[in-house]
Structure formats: structure tokens, C-alpha cells
């Protein structure tokens, strides 16, 4: 089975079931173009009268938009009544296709899903072939909103009794999301509010800093944050009510009081564990287990040669000499009794931990020990392990041990502490939600002050006063470039090329032959500046190829559109958008004519040179 139905077969079925005209949404521009191309191989022509009607409409459109006269798709449209409509085409071509569709001349338009919003014409049927789309290199499921946006084009008011969605599988389909998208309620809208440098400058131009916060509070972002904060407030009230049920205790803030008390207790025992986490018996013994001491190990006697602590656990250990001169390590706890007998042993720093003479002497003495020796009685102080100083402070600082509330506090503390922590967390979250936008705004203020666009009292400096007129992406980069004189004496085509590479944020690959040295070095400088600003503003792509395209369009005022297209692999719709966007950026520079007349003039020149041919056709 083929992975998807052939476009020609698809159209045949649609026609047969009277489901035309249809909009067929495909995954990519290429898929749309190939679909159209495939009609040439599998002939499915329309009646001559329809072809004539199409020619008629197209002639009208060509009179208005000469750029479409030589469009390579025209013969296919005339012969088969199908067209492609996607962002790779010129706007004028898309207008022509829309007009053909409105006049009922076409059976099918193949369009990309990504530009559903730009498809502003209805049809009887919408064909859906995918349930996910590629977005920023990820594959994302279509949302309910998106699916309804697609499906919504089906069924024309006044022209159809009923509209259709035809789902046909392709490699990118799963039926669940589509069925869900067709039947479910659309997702709610979330605010996407961002603070930008132009926003800060323009607000501070019109309002003093004291009036900013109330303005930010009018945003949908704050409205939604407030709703969430309100929900948290309710939770907070609830927590506070629960905390009240614990009633009065001896001290005002008993949870904190008990918390630090138990913390101190823990620290104390921790402290103890570190140096002497031994049992009271052992620690009492240790004082006596010095080299030369006789001890009882199970039924046998031994002489202690060394006392030390094990590396890992810090457990008290002994090196002893047992009968026959065997030198063995034992944990101190293995000692069953301390004998009231110490022999002379001269310690050494290495095995066997005493001088050879001492060792011999010890061996001899051990041989001669009687079977029963007097044991040393060792007094074990139950509290003795406690550090007396710490115990003192605990008693002094904390009333808890002797407080009448103690049993109640001890019992309630774990639960109460949880509630108290929740209370703090909620209070903090609520505060953050109420002040978040203001913080963002202040962060931007700080940056603008640092760069000298704002005074310390948040008034616009003379620089800020013109910089606020640059209201496009990468505004900080552009104003900084202007300030450092990067555009002084630049020629029109180079200026436009640089702006194009700042404006263009699409990384769809393309190539363009004929790069210029001047462009390369200028872009290199711009890249350095952009990089130095990267902490404050995301650097643009600064693609050389798009800069070169725009540069050439201006530098060669007689270059026809078709030739520009031929010099690159970029689609002409993309080039059109690139140039249109560059025009917009240039016009913002032109807006600086009262402070930067020279630059404004160059921008004006560039704009005049750009607006010709296809770029003249539409406003």
C-alpha cells in the first residue's frame, strides 16, 4: 500500500463524490509543489469552458499584478484546475489563487498546514493528511485550535448545504488527535506578555516611573497572574485556618521555637556522633585502653599496643598482642574487661607500634600472667558523653525542655511545620505573581540605564529619546550600532544588507552566489557587537546569504526580479518577505531623520532603490 494517496487519485475521488472545491493541507511546500507537478504525468483535465474562465480571471489579475504573468504554474492551473498556495509564493500569486477559488474556478488548492491562518478562503471540503507538524525542529501534535482552524475552512456559507473534512493518511498521521481536534473544545488562550526595550522606553517617554506599575497591571498577563494568585490566596487562607487550630502556646511563635530547639538538639547529637558516637561504656573504657594496658579478649588476655579510629566509620579500634606474639586488630568493643595492669611499652610510629625491646618484654610478661587478673572497675556516666557546654546552652537558650507546652509542641510539631512551610511557600509565590511583571520591567530599566538610554531617575536621555523610535526585534543591537557609528558613510545597499541579516530570523537553508568582501567584514563587526550584547538581547542569525541578496537587489537597480530569484535557492515568497521586512527596518531608521539626518537619508535611498518591480505591486 502506498504511504499516501496519489494527489491525482485524491482529486478523482473528491470530484466523483462532489466534494470539490477542496483545500488539501499538506506537510511541506515541496509536497504541495510535487502534488501540482504530478498532474502533468497523470492527465485529469477540466472542461475547456472552465479553462477559459480561469484564463479570464488570471488575465484580470495579471493586469493588476504583472509579476504573475510568467508564473510557471499557470499552464497547470489552466489545464487541471488545481493550484498550490504556500509561503514560498509571491503574495500576488497567492491573491490570484484566492481569487480563482472565490470565483469557483478551481477544484483543489494544495496548501501547507503551517500557514493555515493565511488561507483566508473557504471550500466545500478540507483534506487533512497529518496530525502533527514540525515546529522548531520538534514534532508537535496539532492543537485543537489548529485543527479547528483547518477544518473551519470546510463548508462555504451560502454556497454549501454541508461542508466536509476528509482525513486521509500520510506518514504523519494518527487519527486520535484529529478526532479529538474535531470534537473537543479549543484550548484557552494564555497571555504571552513580554517586556521589551522599546516598550520600556516608550512607556517612560509618556509616563513617569511612578505610573508604570499601574499600567503593567492592566495587562492580560497580570489579569491571569492575579487569578492564579487569588486561587493561591484561598489556599493560603485555608492553611492559616488550619494553623490556628493549634491554639495558644507558651511562646508566640512556637513552631519556629520548637524548630530551632530540635535543630539544636540534632546538631548536638550530631556533634557527639562525630567525635564520640560510641556507647557510654566504650567511651569510658577508651580512656584506659592506652599502650601497655592488659585487657581481656573473650577468655584470653592481651596487651594493647595502639588505640586508633577506623578510617571509614571512625569506630574506636585497638592493635593488641595476644599470646604467642600475634599482633591483631580489634574493635574496642571486643574488649570484655580492662585489667588493672599496665606494662612498660615504648611506642613506635610504625608496625608493631612499639620498639622491638618493648615487644619482647610484652611477650614475656603476657606469658607469665596468671589465669585470673584483677579487673578494673570502670564507672560509666550515663550523661557523660554529652558535651557539658552544649547541654548548658540548650538549657539556657531554650525554654522548651521545661515548658508546660512541651508535650503538645512535640506532638504537633511535624504537621504544624509542614503547614507553616506551605504558608511561606504560598506567600512567596503570591508575592512573585503580583510583582513579576514589575521586576521584569525593572531589569530592563537597569540595562537601559547601564547603556545610557535612561537616567538614574528613569527619564529618557537624549539617546533614549531617539532610540525609542526603533520598535523592532534586536532594537538594542541596532541602536548600539548607530551610536558607535557603525553605519556612518555606509552605502545604501550595504546598510540594507546588514539590516536584512538582522531582520531575517529563519534558518531555512539557502545559498547565494556572489558574496562581497565589504559585506563580510561589516557583518563580522556586527556579529562582534551582537555577541557582546548577548547577555541583554538574543543575537540575530546574521546570515551572509540573505544580506548578499538584499545588497545585490539595491546595488544593481536594473536587475530584474527573475534574475535575483535565479541566483539563490531561496523561494521567491521568502525573498519577498525578506525584502519587505528590510523595508520596514529601513523605514524605522528613516524615522530618525531629526537626530540622524545622514543615516535617514541613506535609509531613504535604500528604500527608493528597493521598491521596484514586484515590490511595487502591493502596499
Amino acid at each position, binding site marked *: 500500500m502506498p504511504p499516501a494517496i496519489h494527489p491525482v487519485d485524491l482529486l478523482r475521488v473528491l470530484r466523483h463524490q462532489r466534494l470539490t472545491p477542496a483545500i488539501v493541507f499538506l506537510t511541506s511546500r515541496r509536497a504541495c509543489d510535487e502534488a501540482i507537478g504530478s498532474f502533468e504525468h497523470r492527465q485529469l483535465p477540466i472542461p475547456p469552458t472552465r479553462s477559459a474562465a480561469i484564463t479570464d480571471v488570471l488575465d484580470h489579475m495579471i493586469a493588476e499584478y504583472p509579476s504573475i504573468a510568467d508564473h510557471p504554474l499557470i499552464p497547470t492551473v489552466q489545464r487541471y484546475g488545481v493550484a498550490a498556495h504556500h509561503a514560498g509564493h509571491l503574495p500576488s500569486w497567492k491573491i490570484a489563487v484566492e481569487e480563482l477559488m472565490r470565483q469557483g474556478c478551481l477544484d483543489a488548492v494544495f496548501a501547507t498546514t503551517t500557514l493555515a491562518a493565511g488561507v483566508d478562503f473557504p471550500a466545500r471540503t478540507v483534506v487533512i493528511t497529518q496530525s502533527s507538524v514540525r515546529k522548531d525542529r520538534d514534532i508537535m501534535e496539532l492543537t485543537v485550535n489548529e485543527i479547528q482552524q483547518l477544518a473551519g475552512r470546510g463548508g462555504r456559507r451560502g454556497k454549501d*448545504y454541508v461542508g466536509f473534512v476528509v482525513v486521509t493518511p500520510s506518514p504523519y498521521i*494518527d487519527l486520535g488527535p484529529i*478526532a*479529538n481536534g474535531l470534537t473537543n473544545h479549543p484550548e484557552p488562550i494564555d497571555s504571552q506578555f513580554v517586556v521589551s526595550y522599546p516598550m520600556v522606553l516608550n512607556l517612560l517617554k509618556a509616563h513617569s516611573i511612578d505610573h508604570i506599575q499601574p499600567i503593567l497591571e492592566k495587562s492580560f498577563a497580570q489579569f491571569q497572574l492575579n487569578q492564579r494568585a487569588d486561587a493561591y490566596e484561598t489556599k493560603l487562607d485555608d492553611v492559616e485556618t488550619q494553623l490556628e487550630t493549634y491554639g495558644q502556646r507558651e511562646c508566640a511563635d512556637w513552631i519556629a521555637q520548637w524548630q530551632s530547639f530540635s535543630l539544636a538538639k540534632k546538631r548536638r547529637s550530631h556533634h557527639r556522633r562525630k567525635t564520640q558516637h560510641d556507647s557510654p561504656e566504650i567511651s569510658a573504657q577508651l580512656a584506659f585502653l592506652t599502650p601497655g594496658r592488659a585487657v581481656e579478649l573473650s577468655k584470653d588476655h592481651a596487651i594493647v599496643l595502639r588505640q586508633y579510629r577506623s578510617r571509614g566509620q571512625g569506630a574506636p579500634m585497638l592493635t593488641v598482642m595476644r599470646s604467642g606474639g600475634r599482633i591483631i586488630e580489634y574493635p574496642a568493643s571486643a574488649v570484655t574487661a580492662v585489667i588493672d595492669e599496665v606494662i612498660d611499652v615504648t611506642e613506635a610510629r610504625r608496625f608493631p607500634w612499639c620498639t622491638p625491646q618493648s615487644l619482647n618484654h610484652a611477650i614475656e610478661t603476657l606469658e607469665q600472667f596468671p589465669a585470673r587478673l584483677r579487673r578494673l572497675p570502670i564507672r560509666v556516666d550515663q550523661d557523660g558523653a554529652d558535651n557539658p557546654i552544649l547541654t548548658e546552652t540548650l538549657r539556657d537558650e531554650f525554654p522548651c525542655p521545661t515548658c508546660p507546652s512541651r508535650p503538645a509542641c512535640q506532638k504537633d510539631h511535624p504537621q504544624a511545620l509542614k503547614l507553616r512551610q506551605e504558608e511561606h511557600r504560598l506567600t512567596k509565590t503570591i508575592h512573585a505573581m503580583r510583582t513579576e511583571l514589575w521586576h521584569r520591567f525593572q531589569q530592563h530599566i537597569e540595562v537601559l540605564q547601564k547603556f545610557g538610554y535612561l537616567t538614574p531617575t528613569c527619564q529618557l536621555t537624549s539617546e533614549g529619546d531617539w532610540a525609542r523610535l526603533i520598535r523592532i526585534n534586536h532594537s538594542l543591537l541596532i541602536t548600539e550600532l548607530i551610536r558607535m557609528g557603525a553605519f556612518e558613510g555606509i552605502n545604501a545597499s550595504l546598510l540594507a544588507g546588514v539590516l536584512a541579516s538582522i531582520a531575517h530570523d529563519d534558518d531555512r537553508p539557502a545559498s547565494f552566489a556572489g558574496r562581497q568582501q565589504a559585506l563580510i567584514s561589516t557583518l563580522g563587526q556586527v556579529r562582534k557587537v551582537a555577541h557582546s550584547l548577548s547577555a541583554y538581547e*538574543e543575537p540575530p542569525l546574521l546570515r551572509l546569504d540573505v544580506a548578499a541578496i538584499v545588497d545585490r537587489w539595491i546595488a544593481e537597480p536594473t536587475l530584474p526580479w527573475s534574475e535575483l530569484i535565479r541566483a539563490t535557492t531561496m523561494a521567491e515568497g521568502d525573498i519577498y518577505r525578506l525584502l519587505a521586512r528590510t*523595508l520596514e527596518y529601513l523605514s524605522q531608521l528613516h524615522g530618525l531623520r531629526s537626530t540622524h539626518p545622514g543615516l535617514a537619508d541613506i535609509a531613504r535611498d535604500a528604500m527608493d532603490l528597493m521598491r521596484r518591480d514586484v515590490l511595487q505591486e502591493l502596499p
Partner: protein
Amino acid sequence: MTNDALANQLAGLSVRLLHRLAKNRVPRHFRMGKNRLIQTLLELPPEQRAEVETALASLLQAPARPPQPPKPGKVDKPKRQPDAVSRPAPAEQPHSVPAKPAISIQALFEGIGVPPPQPFKPDDWQQEAIDRLATNDVILSVPTGSGKTYVAVEAMRRAIEADRMVIYTSPLKALSNTKLTEFTQIFGADQVGILTGDRRDNPQAPILIMTTEILRNLLYDAASGEIDMRLDTLGLIILDESQFLADRERGVVWEETIIFCPAQARLLLLSASIGNPDEIAAWISSIRSKSCHLIQHRNRSVPLRAAYLDPSGKLAPFFRTRDIARGRGFALHPETKRLFANYEDQTLSPRSKR
């Protein structure tokens, strides 16, 4: 991890993350739908399965939003996280009532055709919107193709008659051009102007078309008192396609425009169906002097039906029922289920991999 536990965790993931897990492990994963992906991931050999489990664990631990380069000023939204743990997979609604028999393909295609021309009569909601605009801001949230433009045009007409100026904004230049043609046909060329980033055609006309960004910039200038436009005579601002409020990059411009909209001008928001128009109406009411009236409905003016077309050319109804029901779950047509299962089997079998 048991199969069931893993399957459960996978089902909670968005398709985007599933594809990430499948990358380099499942050949041609991009061809699969969610269920299929989960199935294939479960059937991986043990080593790969272990890798998937580790990757999954780190996905679930990682903050739902991938760490972004510090994009200055983006407000973090803790509430709705579309990514890591997504809404539960839409379950097919079990039919508790004894199910009606699934419809036939003939019944699905019944009644196709062109209705005879009818004299134009505005719908009630259209009339209500126009009337409300005399005193209130209005947000209109109705399905695509319902006739929002009629409301816009009538509201413009009333504004012009009252010697007030109208600004109409759309999110895309292409749509602006279409509307220029449309409004010019209705009101005449001298009545309609267009403003773009670099061009002003007929800027003295009472109806001005522009993108929302251009309007926002005008409002900035007006606020600092250096406007070369007659905003004091502005009677109406129409924001078409206002669901763009949710656009990640440009949504803020719609917010600013609404916040800075002059008090004397009425606001008309035209939007496709969205989930929370009431919330937006409540917001606008809270910041403007007059309350914002919400007009919404979800009924399509032309009923919509759905069909499934197999690559073999076979057609089947997509759902068991003829019309598409809203908000009550769904049941796929048994024939569609069968055809699609068959399609998946054949196109995903090892034989078809070249």
C-alpha cells in the same frame, strides 16, 4: 519497569517527547501516531528499552520547560505546561447507551449541494454585536466562516456616519491587502487607506487598515503627544483574528493595543473559537471604562461532516455519527478503524522499509 507502568508513563507524554524518545531507536518513528509509537517503544529489545526508561526518567525529572537562553522579559507561566505531562490522552468514549448503528457512507454524503440564493438576513448574534457596539466593547468568538466580517463592516458604516474614524487591524500583511480590496469595494476607494511599515496609502481616509504592530506604534506616539494622526476622532478599533493574543512572539502587541486603546474609541475583537473568551472579556472589562460584551457560539453555520479516505481510494465515515458532535468525546466509525489499522500494518511492516 513493567510494561504497564511504562505504557502508562508514555501515554502521559506529549507526542513531541515521544518522538524524541524514539529518535535513533525506532526507524521511521516520525511516521507513527501516538499509540503506535508507544507500542513500538514497548517492543524494543531490552538494552534499548533500558535506555528509553532512563531517558524517560530524566525527561520527567527535568523542568517541563527546557532551559531557554535568557530571553529578556519573557514571563514564565507556571500554570499550563503543555510539554512533559500533557493532558490525558483523549479516550474514546465508551457508549453507555446501546449504540445506534454506525451510519453508512451513503448517508454521510447525502444532501451535498448548493442552496438557492437567499436574501441576506443578518443572524441574531451579528445584529446583537452591532447593537452592543454602540455602547460597549465587544468580543466576538464564533467559528471560522460564520460572518464576522459583516459585523465589522456594519460597525464601520455606523462609525463613518457618526463622523468617526475606524482602524481595522489584521495580523498579516496578506490579510490586510485582501481586506483593502474588500472594503474598497464596499465603501469606495476614497474611504479606505492602508498603513504599512514603510508606506501610507490614503492616510486621511476614515477607514484605515494596518497590522496590529503599526497600530501599537501609533498608540505609543499618541501617548507621548507627538502624533500626526487624528486619534481624537477615532471611534472604533477592530482587531481581527484576535486569537493572535496567544502568539508566542507577537501576542504582547495585541495586549498593548488593548491597554492603550483610547478611552473614547470602542473595541471590537473578532476571534475564531477559543477556549476562554469569557476570561478575555472579563479582562477587558476590568481595564476599560465600559464593560466588554462577549458574544460567542460554537455552532457552525454550515454543518461539518467527516470522512476517511484510504490510500486505496476507499471511503468511510470518520465518526459513527453523521454530524460532528462537540465536547462529548468521539467514536470512530468501525470501518475507518479497520481501514486505518490495516494501513498502519501495511505501511509500517518491515517489508515496506526500503
